[in-house]
């Protein structure tokens, strides 16, 4: 039997340098965030107001332009949009029963980007982040080390980590520390 040689490519920076980061950890831009709550019968109307179909399945999201809705629970969504978004005003016009609370300053967004992004997050997040279990567009409330986060995969190798502002130092330091360990 002839063995096929499986040559793998080696990046010059990675030869003998396992600490070369293959993912970056950066701060997301300031954003508008709303915690949106409602019952199932208001979802259609609120979707119309928001201009996107509010997701109704666990671990899913919907986006439209800069606006995104992350499913966090059967009656709970995290809406994220640009800092000058009209989303709060839009929702104030909605006549259906709902609760919209501005949490723009409550949360901080951190972006983990690069080939090792999933491994960096898996340094502290116990979820299965394979593309099969956590595909592009998946989001969920979960944990990172000792804190609660919302995790959103918005590209194959890019995650947005949202946490409360006083935990941001911890989350950022944790992800940076984890990124030191990931050279894929």
């Amino acid at each position, binding site marked *: 039997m002839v063995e096929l040689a499986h040559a793998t490519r080696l990046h010059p920076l990675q030869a003998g340098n396992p600490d070369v980061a293959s993912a970056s950890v950066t701060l997301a831009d300031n954003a508008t965030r709303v915690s949106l709550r409602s019952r199932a019968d208001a979802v259609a109307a609120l979707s119309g107001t928001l201009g996107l179909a509010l997701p109704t399945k666990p671990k899913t999201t919907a986006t439209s332009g800069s606006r995104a809705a992350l499913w966090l629970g059967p009656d709970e969504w995290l809406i994220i949009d640009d800092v000058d978004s009209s989303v709060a005003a839009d929702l104030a016009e909605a006549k259906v029963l709902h609760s919209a609370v501005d949490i*723009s300053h409550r949360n901080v967004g951190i972006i983990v980007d690069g080939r090792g992004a999933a491994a960096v997050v898996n340094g502290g997040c*116990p979820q299965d982040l394979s593309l099969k279990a956590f595909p592009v567009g998946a989001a969920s409330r979960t944990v990172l080390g*000792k804190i609660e986060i919302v995790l959103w995969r918005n590209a194959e190798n890019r995650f947005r980590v949202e946490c409360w502002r006083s935990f941001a130092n911890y989350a950022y330091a944790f992800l940076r520390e984890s990124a030191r360990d990931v050279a894929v």
Partner: protein
Amino acid sequence: MSTSTHSGSNRIHGAGRLTPAKTVRFTFDGQNLTGLEGDTLASALLANGIHLVGRSFKYHRPRGILSAGSEEPNALVDIERDKSRRQPNVRATVQEIYDGLKVKSQNRWPSLTFDVGALGDVFSPMLPAGFYYKTFMWPKFAWKSIYEPRIRAAAGLGVTPGEPDTDRYSNRFAHCDVLIVGAGAAGLAAALSAASTGASVIICDEQPEAGGALRYESAVTIDGQPGYEWAASAITKLRALDNVTVLTRTTAFGYYAQNFVGLVERISDHLSSPALDMPRERLWQVRAKKVVLATGAIERHLVFANNDRPGVMLASAARLFLNQHGVAVGRKVGVYTSNDSAYAAAIDLKNAGIDVPVIVDTRDNPTSAIVDAARSLDIEVLTGHAVFSAGGKRRVSSMSIQPTRGGSERKVAVDALIMSGGWTPSVHLFSQSRGKVTWDAANERFLPGTYAQDCVSVGACNGTDGLQATLDEGLAAGEGRTSPIVATNGTEWTGGMIGSAPGAGADTSVKAFVDFQNDVTAKDVRLAVREGMHSIEHVKRFTTNGMATDQGKTSNLHGLAIAAEALDRPIPAVGLTTFRAPFTPVTFGAIVNHARHDLFDPTRETPMHDWHAAQGAAFEDVGQWKRAWYYPQAGEDMHSAVNRECVAVRNQAGIFDASTLGKIEVVGPDAAKFLELLYTNPWEKLGVGRCRYGIMLREDGFIYDDGVVGRLAEDRFHVTTTTGGAPRVMHHMEDYLQTEFPHLNVWLTSTTEQWAVIAVQGPKAREIIAPLVEGIDMSNEAMPHMSVREGKICGVPTRLFRMSFTGESGYEINVPADYGRAVWEAVYGRGKPLGLTPYGTEAMHVLRAEKGYIIVGQDTDGTVTPHDAGLTWAIGKNKTDYVGIRGLLRRDLVANGRKQLVGLKTVDPTIVLEEGAQIVANPNQPVPMTMIGHVTSSYWSENCGRSIALALVIDGTKRLGETLYVPMPNGVIEVEVTGMVFFDEKGERLNG
């Protein structure tokens, strides 16, 4: 025979797989030695003729290298990179050598070859198993002060490092379809098979490379290749696959519920100068759909007199040292066995040119071809014989042979003695998975029986004998479609002996070791039985057999067999062994991994934190929060700083960071209805723009939390909670909403961190902030005490509360958190010329106590009702339902004799009571006195010019004006019971 002396005199030219040119220098107890790249410390020491590597735990007997794997009980050493990176009890058989490796032997003084502690061996008849339970009973006091410390100092192995560990450790969570533990023949077959299905596969092995027993099984071929080469090509193939993760130097140490398996990957322990940033170890927390255990088997020693002499070792170890490392464990190697596998070692040694004078086989008539093969190499084979004892002290020098049924003794000079008592399947992880082992009586071994999880055992750990059967089993476990793998010339591993060998039986008193690491002999096990220990669990604890860090990998079965024999009961009746994690010792570093230093626990800081720090504030930990405690100025101690801050608030104004207060936004048409149910107070009629102080009870009627609630709109409330109570109050409310009141249309959102909160309190508060505020009429009439308005401050949105926790007229400015620092600075800049003074949590506590405002958790302790706390006014008298309403009616809660919150004034106003101090009615009663209450809050009040205190006292409100006593170590303090308000009793300042 030609030898290379460069990397040790026992290096055999042409043997092994290491490269002679790749030398590595290291030291052992200061001695400079050379080994080869790929050597373990054990193989390198043996190459240099060093067998004596340590002293034993209890008797300080000289010890050598027993095994070539992680089961090693003897060869434990201390490895030091530098002072902060020193590791005791490292197994020399696991540690790979690197240039500059510094190794020290352990548990010896002054030196390894001359050890004073070895006197313990001479006096060992006085130190039987369990001796410390019996010998040192008298006098009683001496145990703690003399016996225990000395015994502990004399026993033991390595010394704990004293410096903080500077290495980094990492963590990775991973999921896979199939986790395969062990990359020997069985594990590799399973991995190739599983990988072919496209499943995600993780395969790990504790060794630096794959192969398992194929690393020394010299005659084996698989698919036409030598076994070792087949393993190497298989692992290369697996590494190249996207769906396979190969982890070498990685030990699966713990198997937990739902196929959760803990692995430790050793990343830098084998490197000479690891990159500074490189983690030393990585913890893998793997959740697998299916686990394949391919953990192999561990060879047992034989239990005979002086079987612990350096140079006496497992046959398979000698074989690995020869075939992998090219090292001969001796020049004249005796063999003692009870099964076939040791013959293979003897043959390999003989073929390498080593003198193998004799194979002693306890079996009367072994018939395998391998016995004849040994004979045909002119090795003497003595069947029906046993080694009754090993000679020599720091190195074995001879073996004394007798027929098993007795007869004349023959002594053969040797410089190494290799042995095999047979193979014990490694069922550790299976057992950890809560699987039940069964006793295979025919082959005297425990095998996996009933599985508790989605797991399968393959190969030697499953009792599968023969290489072909092992490969077939591995392929099947992988559930893939791959062509068969064909093996030839595998070694037979069945058979062997458990318990004491001939010459170490019940009628003898020789030192035949069962457990090397804990110095337990066959005699000790029998003593335990005589002392009445009839279950193996008791025998283990009495003798400590199997309880060392090696977890009795070589000793458990022997101990069990000896106990069973002494009890004259079958082995399963004496007990099954349960294995617990970790399989091998795991460093604290790996377990803790990232959670060190700043990442030990989150430290929560408010948006204004850096400002406080720049002002020199002292901080107080409140849960995970850092709160500004007080702001000392030059020359001030805490006391004078707090006094200054308290006076400034009452005379001019103070500024306080209240951002940590919990905040919950309650939204929905039923919001008021919901609050009616959660708080004792009425809410329906609270006007929009008004605030109310609310009390929240548990179902049992006791105070759970309190806070001010503002109504922003008909359907929107801004609720505040205590700092520490924020998360639990949110959960409490959510719990009731979901389980008791799901019909209500209301939702809760935590906004604690959305808002920075700047409290400005004092007579000048309005004057200071009014010019910064837009869109809000701040006049007393338009915005009275306990109101809330939305508008702008410094150009950013604000929820401006007029409220007070100081008794002064004041405001709490809520702004979106990112603006907190800028607004704080603007307010401070404007207020400073008017006397505005930053004050911390300590001044806040004093100011509220001057007004008799309680702090939940300080003045209450979970057994205090609103009535007890003087807050009856906060209960809606016409309300028919709220959480705790029925609890409040319980007989005990309305009875006389409850502790009630009152004020205390010391008769001597300069004395500040101690918080927690007990209160009595009569200080002259005999001890123990009847205590009628305790101090909950106590401060020096500069504003009152005296000390003040709050206390819970039985029937306190009926005692106003009474004199009570606080007995303290330095004398009794006389106090007067007063109302709770010490300053501005009428509350006029609130409306200023």
